[in-house]
């Protein structure tokens, strides 16, 4: 294969991002022009980034180059290998869709907000993500990592007028800095063993790592990348930060920025730390299961559309970690083929989640754009004024619930197959963990389906609930085009999953030393198998065709009736009451009430009803209903810790109490102690 211009297209895409950032910052005075520059250059950068990724995947061999940096001791070195190619492909698809979407989304900023600054941060985010995925030495990786966090902070607090946004932004940047601190320590530990900052040297030095050093490094990296990926104990910032960001940014945050944590784990666990012990893989698996189940359970209780989607990001990250954990366990148990399947399941779900989560956030964004509110209780009946948005949101909902024939189903199917094989491949008691993880995954899938039935139905179906959702227009054209591309990507990845698996050949060979991608495809390219002889097989293409073919007899059957009598429109059954109004509709809180009762142990629901009446309680003028679930992680873990630190700090303040005698006493005591310390022979 002649060498495809990977380096050239990559540098072109980086240059476009840089130029785009500076030009949009410069042209902030003219909002209209600035909007086109910002979205145009981002789109161009994304397209070239995509080309670079595709060329790299086709070519298979990694491309390495480095530029001498202005700073001595540290060079900017890049290593564009298959893993970097895959994540850059994800970034390119999303960046392209979001920039198309932003063409008209930014129109509402024109009078009120500084589009130039937004463009600058947007390009900075894309640029830093590209570099994070391709950095070859720890120093460059850490700089890009923190610039990504800072750009994301700037974007999350773009509407910095209201307090909630500022607090969410600060929480985001503080947690991001904690994980940067963990990574800093992890890399320093590795560099101490390997001597140099390059990832390649980590690979070779991994064998010299003592088991305790490897364990400490693993924990540091897992905490660091876990915070960025929003894994369960550290997920606090995610449901706060993603909803308050502008919608096109929160889609990018949930789609790709979370995946930087997954990329880090893949790069370091599979490539940097050598063969991790099996307890590490199991820890990742267990944390994955916890994140998946708790993520979806918390999502069910939300009636703010974007917070619901943010919690679902936690759930899907959990599913990805299940795949990754299984891959780690298989690798140490000596089954590279199964590890390959599990890794493909994890990475394929990363791509799928990026696409349909971005689609859903863009859908929520256009709903917010048209109605001005994120609260589902005030929405309803939007399918008539916004048919295209509704259809895209529906496709996203079906995909995220993992229902065939879309892409969510394919990656969850692969995860099930790897868990099933896991029971056979591993020994001892841990074998039981895999099927249990499988059943928890099924629970998560079903709860996700319930959650998205609620989200879609309450927002789009039946009668509009509030004044806001009654007089509504469809989202502007470019937003629909943006969502359309992603919807098409969902469908094509779902139906054409088998053609897409070739992408993983080079990747699995590089990380696990065994080409896995193509041997999962059988049945003349239509059927996806689990790699085991007589193993489970599925073909979304045939399912899709089957569904269409069977549609014909159904339509024929219905036409018998409709030929004789035209279908009429009548009022729904209202038990004889004077006609149905929107008050009779089911609300989001009511829909999730059954689950709130069943999982009340987790939620500790609290309910408050005040009836306002003047004559007797049986004729209330107004009823005030308030229900709330207990945020266990904040209440049990973070708030006590905060109070502990607070008390410590208040005690420490007494040192600077203002009296000069006390100050002199400190110095005097130190002097005498040190003199005695210095005197000993």
């Amino acid at each position, binding site marked *: 294969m002649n060498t495809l211009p990977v380096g050239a297209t990559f540098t072109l895409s980086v240059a476009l991002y840089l130029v785009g950032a500076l030009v949009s910052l410069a042209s902030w005075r003219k909002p209209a022009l600035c909007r086109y520059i910002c979205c145009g250059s981002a789109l161009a950068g994304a397209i070239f980034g995509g080309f670079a990724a595709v060329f790299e995947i086709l070519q298979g061999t990694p491309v390495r180059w480095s530029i001498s940096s202005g700073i001595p001791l540290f060079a900017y070195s890049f290593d564009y290998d298959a893993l970097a190619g895959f994540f850059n492909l994800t970034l390119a698809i999303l960046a392209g869709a979001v920039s198309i979407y932003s063409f008209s989304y930014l129109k509402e900023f024109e009078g009120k907000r500084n589009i130039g600054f937004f463009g600058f941060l947007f390009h900075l985010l894309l640029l830093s993500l590209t570099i994070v995925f391709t950095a070859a030495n720890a120093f460059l990786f850490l700089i890009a990592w923190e610039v990504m966090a800072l750009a994301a902070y700037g974007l999350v607090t773009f509407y910095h007028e209201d307090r909630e946004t500022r607090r969410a932004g600060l929480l985001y940047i503080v947690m991001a800095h904690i994980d940067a601190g963990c990574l800093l320590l992890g890399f320093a530990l590795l560099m101490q063993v390997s001597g140099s900052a390059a990832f390649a040297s980590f690979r070779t030095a991994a064998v010299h790592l003592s088991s305790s050093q490897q364990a400490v490094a693993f924990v540091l990296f897992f905490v660091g990348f876990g915070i960025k990926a929003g894994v369960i104990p550290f997920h606090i910032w995610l449901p706060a930060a993603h909803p308050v960001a502008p919608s096109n940014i929160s889609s990018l945050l949930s789609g790709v920025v979370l995946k930087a944590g997954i990329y880090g784990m893949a790069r370091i666990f599979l490539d940097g730390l050598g063969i991790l012990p099996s307890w590490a893989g199991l820890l990742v698996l267990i944390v994955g299961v916890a994140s998946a189940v708790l993520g979806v359970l918390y999502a069910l209780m939300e009636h703010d559309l974007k917070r619901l989607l943010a919690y679902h990001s936690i759930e899907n990250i959990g599913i990805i970690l299940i795949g990754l954990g299984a891959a780690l366990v298989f690798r140490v148990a000596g089954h590279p083929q199964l590890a390959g399947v599990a890794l493909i399941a994890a990475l394929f779900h990363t791509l799928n989640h990026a696409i349909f989560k971005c689609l859903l956030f863009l859908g929520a964004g256009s709903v917010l754009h048209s109605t001005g509110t994120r609260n589902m209780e005030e929405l309803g009946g939007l399918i008539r004024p916004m048919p295209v948005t509704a259809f895209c949101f529906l496709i996203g909902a079906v995909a995220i619930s993992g229902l065939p024939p879309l892409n969510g189903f394919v990656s969850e199917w692969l995860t099930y197959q790897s868990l099933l094989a896991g029971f056979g491949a591993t020994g001892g008691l841990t074998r039981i963990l895999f099927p249990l993880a499988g059943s928890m995954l099924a629970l998560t899938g079903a709860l996700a389906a319930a959650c998205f039935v609620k989200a879609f139905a309450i927002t789009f179906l039946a009668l509009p609930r509030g004044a806001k959702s009654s007089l509504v227009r469809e989202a502007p054209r470019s937003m629909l085009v943006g969502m359309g591309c992603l919807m098409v990507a969902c469908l094509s990845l779902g139906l054409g999953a088998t053609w897409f698996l070739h992408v993983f050949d080079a990747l699995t060979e590089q990380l696990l030393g065994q080409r896995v991608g193509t041997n999962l495809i059988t049945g003349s390219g239509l059927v996806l198998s689990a790699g085991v002889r007589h193993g489970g097989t599925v073909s979304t293409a045939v399912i899709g065709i089957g569904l269409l073919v069977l549609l014909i007899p159904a339509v024929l059957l219905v036409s018998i009736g409709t030929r004789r009598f035209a279908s009429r429109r009548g009022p729904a059954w209202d038990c004889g009451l004077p006609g149905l109004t929107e008050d009779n509709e089911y609300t989001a809180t009511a829909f999730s009430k059954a689950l709130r009762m069943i999982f009340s142990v987790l939620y500790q629901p609290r309910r408050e009803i005040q009836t306002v009446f003047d004559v007797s309680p049986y004729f209330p003028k107004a009823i005030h209903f308030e229900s709330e679930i207990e945020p266990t992680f904040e209440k049990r873990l973070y708030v006590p810790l905060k109070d502990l630190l607070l008390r410590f700090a208040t005690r420490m303040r007494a040192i600077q*109490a*203002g009296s*000069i*005698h006390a100050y*002199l006493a400190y110095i*005097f005591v130190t002097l*005498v102690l040190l003199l005695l310390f*210095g*005197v000993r022979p």
Partner: protein
Amino acid sequence: MTFLQDPEFGDRIITLMAALVLVLQIAAVGQRWLVSSIRIFAVQSFLLAAIAGIIAYFNHASHIYVAALLTLILKAALLPWVLERLVRRIEIRREIEPLINAPLSILISGCLTLVGYVVAQSFYHPEETSVRAALGHNTLAVAIALFLIGFFTMLNRRKALTQVLGLLSLENGLFLAAISLTYGMPLVVELGIFFDVLVAVMILGILVFRIREAFDSMDVSKLRKLRE
């Protein structure tokens, strides 16, 4: 008059004077009157100048004479006069008492003298050094004690002026240490140090005056507004 050349005699005189300086310093710790503590400082400075003179005389080190003269003029005469004038002009209540009551603070300064000796013994072995035992070697322990007790008086006193006195007695301790260890620092350095001490005291004097104006009392423990 041969005893004038006899180093043994010089050594005895120096030790006597150093002991006297130490006693005065401990007395100053428990002192209740402002003016008398200034006078104690003046006597101490005079004794130090004398010690310096004697060491210069016996060791024929000319530059110590300059230092002795400077100490005599500055610390024995000029500064006490300025400070007393300052006290007479602004302070009505001359009577002061330390933060920690007198007997305890004297006990503490006793312990500090002990610490001074322990520190001096640890590194200064005049007996086996190759250079002939220079005169006034045993005053190092007194110097360190003077330094520590001076520090303690700053810590112990409420009045701004007494803190300045504490700082000056601290400087005296250093001057004595310098003489006893190495016949004083090189001349230029000696001059620099004297100049700095002088300017420091002048500035502290201005500050005391301004604090007296602002807080209409020299009590430093009132200065507590800047907290945390």
